[in-house]
């Protein structure tokens, strides 16, 4: 999977998600989920890697479900009631549909995204989608500053303790710290911009690309797979009469 162009992986996940957010029934979500699990088996994703990476999705999905079961729209038999919480036939069905949907959108997204290399993605966006190089490479280089910002933030925090102001007024202190980080990041950003400009970035020359961004049958196939899973899921929902267009709810 890591050999597939990141733009194709992004596209596949987007197409699939687009199909699945149109409706909130349980049929489409289960069909999509089942097809995805088959797809994961076909690409032989290592089990350990799969569970580790998708763990957040497995945690988030039931939590969403519980919330909807308790507070979703009441319909049919009420099973349980406490304060504002009311578990009914309707809210329970909705909860199950939502859990399946979070999994059906989240799992492939994680599997497709986690291994994306930012540099390869930028190459793809600029060379394949023809997004402006200035914008894509600027964002890519800017991302490299994030780890520096994290270090800055830790130092700012320790420095506040050293200055004797860390005992109280946490919110005000955080605001001040955020401002200091902002000033520091502008400074780092402008140094980086100078360094990039000094290397001819943004010059009036047709830029070449040192790395290829390969695109072929494999990329089209991955995108088509994403779209077909979504379309099959929609078809199943319509056929079973469970199609439930999200707008107008």
């Amino acid at each position, binding site marked *: 999977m890591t050999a597939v162009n990141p733009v194709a992986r992004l596209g596949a996940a987007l197409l699939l998600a687009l199909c699945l957010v149109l409706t909130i029934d349980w049929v489409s979500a289960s069909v999509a989920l089942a097809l995805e699990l088959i797809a994961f088996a076909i690409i032989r994703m290592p089990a350990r890697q799969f569970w580790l990476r998708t763990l957040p999705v497995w945690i988030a999905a039931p939590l969403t479900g519980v919330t909807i079961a308790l507070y979703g729209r009441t319909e049919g038999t009420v099973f349980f009631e406490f304060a504002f919480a009311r578990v009914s036939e309707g809210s329970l069905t909705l909860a199950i549909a939502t859990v399946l949907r979070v999994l059906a959108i989240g799992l492939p997204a994680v599997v497709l995204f986690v291994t994306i290399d930012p540099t390869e993605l930028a190459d793809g966006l600029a060379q394949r989608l023809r997004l402006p190089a200035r914008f894509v490479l600027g964002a890519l280089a800017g991302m490299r500053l994030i780890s520096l910002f994290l270090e*800055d933030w830790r130092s700012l925090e320790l*420095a506040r303790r050293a200055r004797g102001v860390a005992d109280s007024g946490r919110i005000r202190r955080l605001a001040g710290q955020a401002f200091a980080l902002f000033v520091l990041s502008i400074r780092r950003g402008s140094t980086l911009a100078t360094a990039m400009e000094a290397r001819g970035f943004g010059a009036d020359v047709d830029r*070449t690309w040192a790395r290829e961004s390969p695109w072929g049958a494999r990329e089209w196939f991955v995108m088509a797979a994403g779209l077909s899973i979504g379309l099959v899921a929609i078809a199943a929902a319509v056929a079973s009469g469970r199609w439930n267009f999200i707008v107008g709810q």
Partner: protein
Amino acid sequence: MLLLGASGAGKSTLLHALAGVLADDEGEHEGTMLVDGHRPAPGRAGLVLQDPDSQLILARVGDDVAFGCENLGVPRDETWRRVRESLDAVGLAVPLDRSTTALSGGQKQRLALAGVIAMRPGLILLDEPTANLDPVGVAEVRDAVSRVAQQTGATLVVIEHRVAVWQHVVDRVVVLGAGGGVVADGNPSSVLEARGAALAAGGVWVPGHPPPLPNRRQRRAPVAVLDTEGLAVGRSREAVQSGLDLSVSSGATLAITGSNGTGKSTLGLTLAGLLPPVGGVVTASDVLADGAGPHPISWRSRQLLTRIGTVFQQPEHQFLASTVRAELSVGPIALGLSAAETDSRVTELLERLRLARLAEANPFTLSGGEKRRLSVATMLATRPGVLVLDEPTFGQDSRTWAELVALLAELVDDGTALVAITHDLDLVDAIADSTVELT
């Protein structure tokens, strides 16, 4: 060519203009500047800056070197050929897919240099390329630069406070005057002979003109104020150093040295009661603790003020207020001192550290040397018994250096316990009573 001059003489601005990265709308300019008979433009001249971290552009070594070639429209095969040649030239023998963040400071600067020479410029510009490096890194970069200049035949212009580093690499020295204009231009030995004393007075490190060292006073016998036992330190739960048994004494200076990445700063922050020990303990004497408990990490932030002060490597990290005067008042106010007492302490520090004329300026707008003096002054305002300084002389000119050393010596003579984390061997020679080298 080595470009010298006092701070504010416009050395960096000149270099940026030569590199073609000064936009027409940035400030005023007059006259013309031609590089190879053309207006300056990236590609004709390559520029290496001071901060190793801010000039890494891409995530992998090979891609970073290729970046300039791509921008100049160099074909793919040619680009990769140049990438390998450039890395060879700067002596950086790492795989092309090595992460750029995993490199040491000296390696990062050589990477930046490789990225520049891959563009095949006729002019290589270096703006204090070794100011942020440890001695090993300084030598690495200097040797790489001189090799590159010989191999490529490119013209080299370098700005640097420390003349000794470049003296034998360059064959011409140009001195810019503080008021503008060129005051000296010629071969290194004759320029340094004629202008050496004046340059040294202006803050340039000139061999044979060392900054003045302070006269030391009689000191009382040192008394231990902080002790560590089996101390292990680290930023996370993983220790970078362990089994440290150290003692910090009043009226004495402990220097902590070692190359980049050995955990010097982490040790300093742990001694200062800012980071919890990963193992072992830091114990304060009863006199220092003054009823606050034996372990600095459990003291309240306000209790640290009169006990242990910390001067961070980057002064900007510890600035809180919008004027220099307010910055100095933060500590005394947090202690609950009276307005009169706060005012008298602040005024005294402003005078003593030559910051009085900047009292209403914003700390972020000060020069490097002024920021350093202010960050030390903020800690002195609450008169802590222990002062921990992280690279206090990093990138400072010789004048600021001499002032700092004089100030620190005075504090120690008055009984303060000093911990200096540094790879500045001149500083160690000047003030250290004992030295711990981390490896």
